[in-house]
C-alpha cells in the first residue's frame, strides 16, 4: 500500500480572506485509489480547501499538487484531470439523461464515439436504459445522484471530489451509492468525499477532521476510534470538533 503514488499532495496550504484564515497550514497526501473522507464542522474550512484542490481558487501560500499538476500554476490541467459532484449542483433538469452525458462529455473533450460508449456503459450499469431519453427532472433524486456520479467519472479522472453526495436520499440508495464509490476506487480512481453522515466516515480508508481551519486528526477510522477510546466515528467527531 505504501507503494501507491500520491494523487494529492498538500504542503503548508494557507488560504486567507482578509484577516480571516480559512485554511491554516494544511498538510496531507492522498494515494491513488484511496477513499478519503474529508470531515469537519460547518465553517471549518472544508469548502475552501476543496475549491483550491479542484483549481477554482488559488492558495495564499503553500503548495498543492493534484494529479501531477501544481494548482497555482496549472489550474486548467488540474480541472481536466478531476471529476466533481455536489448535492447542490449536479445535472441539468431540462436536458434528458443522454443530453447531460453528451454535454459533460463535450466539455471534457471526449470524442462522439467515446461519449456514446460511456453513456451506454453507465445506463446499462445503473439499469436505466429506458430512461436515457427522459428529462432529468422526471427522475427520482437517488437516481439523479447516481447519474451525477457517473457523469463525474465519465472522463476517467485521476481523482473525483464528492461534496456531500448522499444528502437526503433514502438509506438503501445511500448504500447503493457507496457501492459505486467502492467500484470506482477499486479501478484506481481516488475518491475525495465530504459527508455529515458519520456511518459513511467509516466507509472511508482514511479520514481527516478539520476544525477552525486546521486539520486536527487524520488516520483510518479504526485508528481514530482506538486513539480516542470510543466506539463510533460520531463520538470521535464530537470529541474533536466541539
Amino acid at each position: 500500500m505504501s507503494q501507491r503514488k500520491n494523487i494529492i499532495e498538500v504542503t503548508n496550504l494557507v488560504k486567507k480572506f482578509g484577516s480571516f484564515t480559512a485554511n491554516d497550514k494544511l498538510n496531507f497526501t492522498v494515494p491513488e485509489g484511496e477513499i478519503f473522507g474529508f470531515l469537519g464542522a460547518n465553517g471549518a474550512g472544508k469548502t475552501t480547501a476543496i475549491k483550491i484542490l479542484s483549481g477554482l481558487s488559488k492558495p495564499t501560500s503553500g503548495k498543492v499538487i493534484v494529479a501531477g499538476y501544481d494548482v497555482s500554476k496549472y489550474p486548467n490541467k488540474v480541472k481536466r484531470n478531476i471529476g466533481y459532484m455536489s448535492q447542490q449542483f449536479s445535472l441539468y433538469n431540462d436536458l434528458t439523461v443522454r443530453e447531460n452525458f453528451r454535454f459533460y462529455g463535450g466539455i471534457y473533450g471526449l470524442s462522439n464515439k467515446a461519449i456514446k460508449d460511456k453513456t451506454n456503459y453507465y445506463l446499462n450499469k445503473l439499469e436505466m436504459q429506458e430512461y436515457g431519453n427522459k428529462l432529468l427532472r422526471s427522475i427520482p433524486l437517488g437516481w439523479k445522484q447516481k447519474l451525477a456520479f457517473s457523469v463525474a467519472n465519465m472522463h476517467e479522472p485521476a481523482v473525483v471530489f464528492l461534496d456531500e453526495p448522499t444528502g437526503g436520499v433514502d438509506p438503501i440508495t445511500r448504500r447503493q451509492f457507496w457501492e459505486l464509490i467502492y467500484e470506482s476506487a477499486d479501478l484506481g480512481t481516488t475518491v475525495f468525499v465530504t459527508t455529515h453522515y458519520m456511518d459513511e466516515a467509516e466507509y472511508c480508508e482514511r479520514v481527516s477532521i478539520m476544525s477552525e481551519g486546521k486539520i486536527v486528526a487524520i488516520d483510518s477510522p479504526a485508528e481514530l476510534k482506538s486513539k480516542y477510546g470510543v466506539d463510533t466515528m460520531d463520538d470521535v467527531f464530537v470529541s474533536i470538533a466541539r
Partner: protein
Amino acid sequence: MSININIQNLSKSFGETIALKEISLDIKPNELFGFIGPDGSGKTTLFRILTSLLLPDSGTATVDGLDAVTDYKKIRKLTGYMPGRFSLYSDLSVEENLNFYASIFNTSLEENYDLIKDIYSRIEPFKKRRVSALSGGMKQKLALSCALIHKPKLLILDEPTTGVDAVSRKEFWELLKNMQEKNITILVSTPYMDEASLCDRIALMQNGNMLAVNRPQQIIDQYERQLFEVKTENMHPLVSDLEKYNREALVYRFGEYVHVSTYNGDEREYVFALQGYLTGKGYDQVIIQKKIPVIEDCFLALMDKSQTL
C-alpha cells in the same frame, strides 16, 4: 395549554406523483414528534398542509380543533414554521429580521425575549450583521428564533438539521428539548435516522406512506428479524458474497460492519454456518455477532417489507 393535531385520511397528489397517501395520525399535546424519511417521502407536503400553505386533495387535518382549510387564519397565529429552505431576508440584519417577524404578529422582541433567549443569545453578539454574512449554523438559529417570536403553541420545523454537521445537530436537539419544556408541541422532520431516538414518537415515511408510527424504542422492539453484524479483513467484496449466501436476507453496509438481517431460526447454527462459508471463501478474521437493531435497520426492514407486499 399546548395543542393536539388530528389528521384523517389525508391525501395529496401533484400530477401523477402521489405525495401523501391517506395518512391518519394523532399528535398529542406537548409531544416532540419526528417525521423520519428521505427526500420525496411526503414530509414537506404534510407540513405545508398543516400550516395551511397547501390544500389537501381529500381528508382532513385539525390543529387544536381548528380545520387546516377553513380556519387557516387562526392556525397561522398559533403556529411557528421553519421551512426547509432558508427564507429570511438576507439584506436585513439579524435584529431587523426578528423585529420584522415580531411586528407581523403584533408583538416585539422585548415581549417574548424570554422564550428565545436560549437560542438568540448565541447570535445576539452579531445582531447588527446582515443575514447574508452569517454562517449556516447562525442562520439556522436565527430562523428558529423568528419562528418562535410570536410565542406559538405549535412549532413545525422542516429538516432543520439537513446539511448541518454532527456537533451542531446535537446542540440543536438540546435546544428543541428545552423548547418542549415551555409547553410547545413540536413537529420536526429529518433524513437523519440517528435523530429519531431524540423524539417522543416518530413516523417513518416513505413514498407518501407511513411505514410505522410509534415510540422509537417500540419500533425497535417490534423488529421481526434477526440481525447480525459481520466484519472481516477485506470488506470490499463482502456485501456481494453475503448476498449470494442468503438471497432472502437483507445485506447492507453499516459503518465498519456489514449488517445481515434474516428470518432464519437458530441463531447459533446460522452464525456457525455463515462463519464456515466466509472462511471457505478465503476471508480472514471473520467476526459475526448478534446486533440490536437501530432505527435505520428498522427502516430498511420496513422498506423491504412494503416493497415485497
